[in-house]
């Protein structure tokens, strides 16, 4: 009963000074809108980055030289056939695919340019989630036989087969150094941010063929697809043990995409928190505005306070009247701020093509914070009202 009375009184008081109320509200509106939109946009960006990284091969695990330990690049110890066999035999490994990487001059007609040539096994396409725009990937048998087949990416098509579509280059000959390769497939271009940063020309060929041509029989990395439901931590431990049996401890690291995702998440979470914290300062400033106006209001209404005391208002009655007034201001600001923030998020996600993630949690958080600001900054003025001496207050002109 009392609360409802106080809300009515507060709305009354706020209506009398509509302009003043509006300006006071504005501080809270800006703060709440900023908090909400920052959190939503940051979450949207995070989701986008995570989706991209997952596109690199979900659940993928790989072994690569630990560059922190092996700092001398000229004597870099790499992985070899023994490691590949040991890894393939481990329980929980569905597929293991080695990778050799080198750079070679490539040409189709006269013009030659250096491109990345990656030697891989037939399973590499599956392990790395690669899709084909045209043609096919080479088979295990072709890898075992060391055939001269190549799967190229779209950048290669663009640069070396000017004007050709992906489908047109299947069956064409691509010269790598002095060796002719038949193009059997074209990789689908990944439109994502991460892939487009890579943007270099690449031809993938059977690793057997590449190591025979270059004399290199060591691998830069081994990519592993875990079996469905395998214990990832256990598997990574086994992989490390298998590699260390041949090379000794510390020279290679075992990584998983899950770890990378976790790192991205924690970094973006911290960034979100920092920016939201800065936005929350705006809300705090809004709270100071509320306190300022409430102090003015208490002074202006000294007479009213005296009258209320004379007719029997207790301290708690006046305290709650003015506290409710402050909270009504901050809550109204909160509600308007949520609407403005939601609009802002919709606008940004439409313009920047980000997924918008306006969660009920962040809305509730911002609203709760706004109400809290009202309480915190309303207590002092309300207490000042409640403690007035009734006789002094009645005399106030």
């Amino acid at each position: 009963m009392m609360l409802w009375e106080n809300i009515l009184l507060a709305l009354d008081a706020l209506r009398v000074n509509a302009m003043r109320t509006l300006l006071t509200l504005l501080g809270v509106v800006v703060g709440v809108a900023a908090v909400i939109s920052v959190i939503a946009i940051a979450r949207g960006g995070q989701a986008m980055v995570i989706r991209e990284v997952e596109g690199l091969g979900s659940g993928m695990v790989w072994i690569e030289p630990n560059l922190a330990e092996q700092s001398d690049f000229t004597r870099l110890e790499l992985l070899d056939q023994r490691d590949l066999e040991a890894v393939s035999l481990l329980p929980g490994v569905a597929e293991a695919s080695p990778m050799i990487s080198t750079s070679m001059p490539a040409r189709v007609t006269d013009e030659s340019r250096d491109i990345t040539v990656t030697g891989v096994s037939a399973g590499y396409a599956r392990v790395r989630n690669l899709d084909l725009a045209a043609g096919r990937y080479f088979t295990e048998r072709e890898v075992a036989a060391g055939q001269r087949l190549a799967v190229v990416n779209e950048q290669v098509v663009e640069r070396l087969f000017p004007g050709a579509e992906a489908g047109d280059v299947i069956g064409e000959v691509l010269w790598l150094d002095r060796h002719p390769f038949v193009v059997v497939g074209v990789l689908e271009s990944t439109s994502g941010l991460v892939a487009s940063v890579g943007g270099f020309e690449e031809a993938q060929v059977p690793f057997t063929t590449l190591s025979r041509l270059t004399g290199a029989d060591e691998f830069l990395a081994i990519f592993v697809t875990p079996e469905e439901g395998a214990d990832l931590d256990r598997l990574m431990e086994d992989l490390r043990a298998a590699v260390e049996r041949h090379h000794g401890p510390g020279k290679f690291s075992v990584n998983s995409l899950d770890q990378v995702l976790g790192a991205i998440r924690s970094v973006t979470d911290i960034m979100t928190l920092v920016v939201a914290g800065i936005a929350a300062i705006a809300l705090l400033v809004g709270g100071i505005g509320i306190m300022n106006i409430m102090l003015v209001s208490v002074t202006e209404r000294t007479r009213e306070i005296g009258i209320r005391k004379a007719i029997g208002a207790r301290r708690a009655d006046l305290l709650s009247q003015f506290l409710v007034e402050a909270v009504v201001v901050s809550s109204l600001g909160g509600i308007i701020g949520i609407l403005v923030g939601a609009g802002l998020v919709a606008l940004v996600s439409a313009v920047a093509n980000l997924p918008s993630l306006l969660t009920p949690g962040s809305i509730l958080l911002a609203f709760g914070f706004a109400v809290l600001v009202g309480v915190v900054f309303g207590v002092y003025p309300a207490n000042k009202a409640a403690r007035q001496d009734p006789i002094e207050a009645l005399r106030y002109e």
Partner: protein
Amino acid sequence: MSEAPLIRLRGVSRVYRTGSVEVAALQGVDLDVEAGEFVAIVGPSGSGKSTLLHILGCLDRPTAGQYLLKGRPVDGLSDDELAVVRNRELGFVFQSFNLLPRMSALRNVEQPLIYARVPAAERRRRAAEALERVGLGHRLHHRPNELSGGERQRVAVARALVNNPSVLLADEPTGNLDTRTGRDILALFRQLNEAGVTVILITHDLEVAAEARRIVEIRDGRIVGERRGDAP
């Protein structure tokens, strides 16, 4: 004496201290008011009559002496307990009406009942009744600035009466009214008194005081005399 009077002051003093200077606004005041009386307290400005009203109205505490209201001491009560006493036992009428400007007459009269935790529907009924009683049944939804001075003071009287107090305390209630309207308000007080309401009226105007049945004169913080008024 068998029964305690409604109000009993014994040796009540009120000393104001400003720095090292002490000013005694009241000095050893003894006063008994029985239920149903119509008392005027009269004195020139600075005589201490306002201080006396504040003490009677539980807005202030005596620095010495005792105040019994309905036989119970009120000088030891806390601020919140005094607020409850003001709400239940006392009704104030001020010289400058002291209505809340943004509210209708009805809402103004309802306010004391809000603090008495009376439910909304009953509150409205009782406030309307109180306004009927002071002759403003046709002005329930007017705001103070839409009412004449006399009507405003009637709203204030209705607000003072709405919680059925033991005493109606009026501080120069005709001070802001013209002579005729002032007379009407005094007639209202007399009428309420005849219906059983105890009225204590404070004024500097002997003509106004004469409306009471009993006149108490105060000067320099002491009661200096007492006589019967014109009222029957």
